[in-house]
């Protein structure tokens, strides 16, 4: 069943973006992190907090009831606030819910926020499901992806150096992003040092720190009524969410799920993979950029490593992959990550990304995967 896109019935735009830099865990409260991002997004949009009709807070680690004690410090206006948890895709899902709310006509201006602070563990529910497994305890997320890397590299005769070049590129992009947790250019030798699991090294694994990201989402009515600058409003033309279905034994679920969600998003937008100028991808581990480039149809199976080497996925290439630095360099504070991707895509489509600007960017995608497994994909277009 394919319903007509709710986003074409009542168009939805991102009109403001704001971030608190991603950083190592500090004494700063989540309230302070979140308010920094929301205030910046409101200023960027040129709207007041009293103009906001509803708020969604994406967070996976803070615990219940995070929103009001934070957002009421902008003024206790009594608007509906809802906390959204979808593992690593929590922020992406807060954007999805905010888009749905504006498209439905219930609201004209909605804030989607992501904020988190790291804890000792992730506290993931699947481990509490009471389904014992042989590998319990020995396979943590980076080893899951190290095993996917092993299979992919063997199948396509790809070397450690080729996978590491993804991280070299994304660290270089992150060095140009003042909101990135890691802002250092790294050589191939540096990236290849410090093995963690299989071929993955420390600099091919994302840092999990703290931070915040916020976007203001508005309808055309809201834009007109509040006199928002239309030239800086970027349209959301697809919002797709899927969970893992039952695939054939041994099929890599992360890539299969990404392929299905990406297809749904391209169909909703009426666009093709070749239309993308910018793609913020879930590169928690370097191998993922190669897997998802192929799953999303940006290149043929087995081609992604040579496309990275050729510079095709660089800023200035045919499609800039993770110009923000991606999860590898910008960082992965969990709740903020998916919202931060949307902020980067908007900045790129506006042409305001400064030294990391992809020339003539008109269409961009944000892609997140979360434990469970869930996948959330948004496509944005410059009107």
């Amino acid at each position, binding site marked *: 069943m394919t319903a007509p896109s709710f986003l074409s019935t009542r168009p939805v735009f991102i009109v403001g973006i704001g971030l608190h830099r991603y950083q190592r865990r500090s004494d700063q409260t989540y309230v302070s992190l979140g308010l920094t991002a929301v205030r910046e997004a409101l200023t960027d949009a040129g709207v007041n907090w009293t103009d906001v009709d509803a708020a969604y807070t994406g967070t996976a680690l803070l615990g219940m009831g995070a929103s009001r004690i934070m957002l009421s410090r902008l003024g206790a206006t009594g608007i509906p606030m809802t906390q959204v948890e979808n593992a690593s895709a929590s922020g992406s899902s807060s954007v999805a819910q905010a888009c749905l709310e504006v498209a439905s006509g219930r609201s004209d201006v909605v804030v989607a926020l992501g904020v988190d602070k790291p804890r000792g563990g992730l506290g993931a529910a699947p481990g509490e499901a009471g389904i014992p497994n*042989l590998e319990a305890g020995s396979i943590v997320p980076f080893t899951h992806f190290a095993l996917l890397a092993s299979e992919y590299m063997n199948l396509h005769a790809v070397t450690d150096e080729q996978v590491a070049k993804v991280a070299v590129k994304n660290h270089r992009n992150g060095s140009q992003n003042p909101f990135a947790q890691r802002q250092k250019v790294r050589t191939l030798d540096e990236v290849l040092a410090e093995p963690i699991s299989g071929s993955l090294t420390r600099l091919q694994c994302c840092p999990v720190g703290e931070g915040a990201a916020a976007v203001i989402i508005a309808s055309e009515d809201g834009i007109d009524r509040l006199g928002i600058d239309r030239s800086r409003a970027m349209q959301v033309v697809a919002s797709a969410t899927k969970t893992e279905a039952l695939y054939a034994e041994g099929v890599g679920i992360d890539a299969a799920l990404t392929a299905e969600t990406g297809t749904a998003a391209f169909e909703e937008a009426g666009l093709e993979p070749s239309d993308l100028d910018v793609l913020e991808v879930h590169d928690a581990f370097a191998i993922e950029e190669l897997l998802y480039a192929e799953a999303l149809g940006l290149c043929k199976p087995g081609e992604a490593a040579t496309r990275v080497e050729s510079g095709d996925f660089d800023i200035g290439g045919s499609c800039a992959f993770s110009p923000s630095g991606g999860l590898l360099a910008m960082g992965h504070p969990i709740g903020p990550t998916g919202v931060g991707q949307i902020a980067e895509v908007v900045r790129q489509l506006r042409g305001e990304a400064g030294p990391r600007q992809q020339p003539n960017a008109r269409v961009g995608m944000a892609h997140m995967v979360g434990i469970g497994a869930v996948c959330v994909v948004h496509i944005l277009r410059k009107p």
Partner: protein
Amino acid sequence: MTTEARHPHLLKLVDPPIIVGHRCISCERIAFPPDPYGCEKCGSPSDNFENWDLEARGSVRAVATVHRHHRPAPITPFTVAVIELVGGPVVKAIVEGDDVVVGSSVEGFLAPEDKDDAGKVIVDLRFRITQ
């Protein structure tokens, strides 16, 4: 001296060891591990499952040596693999020996992992190159 499996519901302590999976009587899907809730293919509740013995033999689809680990056990370095069992399901497990590569034929064996105060030995399934 008694011997007990670390995961008693997942293994039969025979030689060679047997991995216990499940088969859904409604849709005939064979899967690992056994599941106390229901079938991911057809939605049947798990009282419609039967235990299904799987030979601990298969081929390696992926392998990785872990150098850093968030937990006290296993002690690093150790090597894990994705193994496609001859009976269909794919499992992940620790493998022993430097000679395991993608495509290797491997077999399961019971490795002692721990001994409690009463002398009870805890064993777990590991894989090695087929002898």
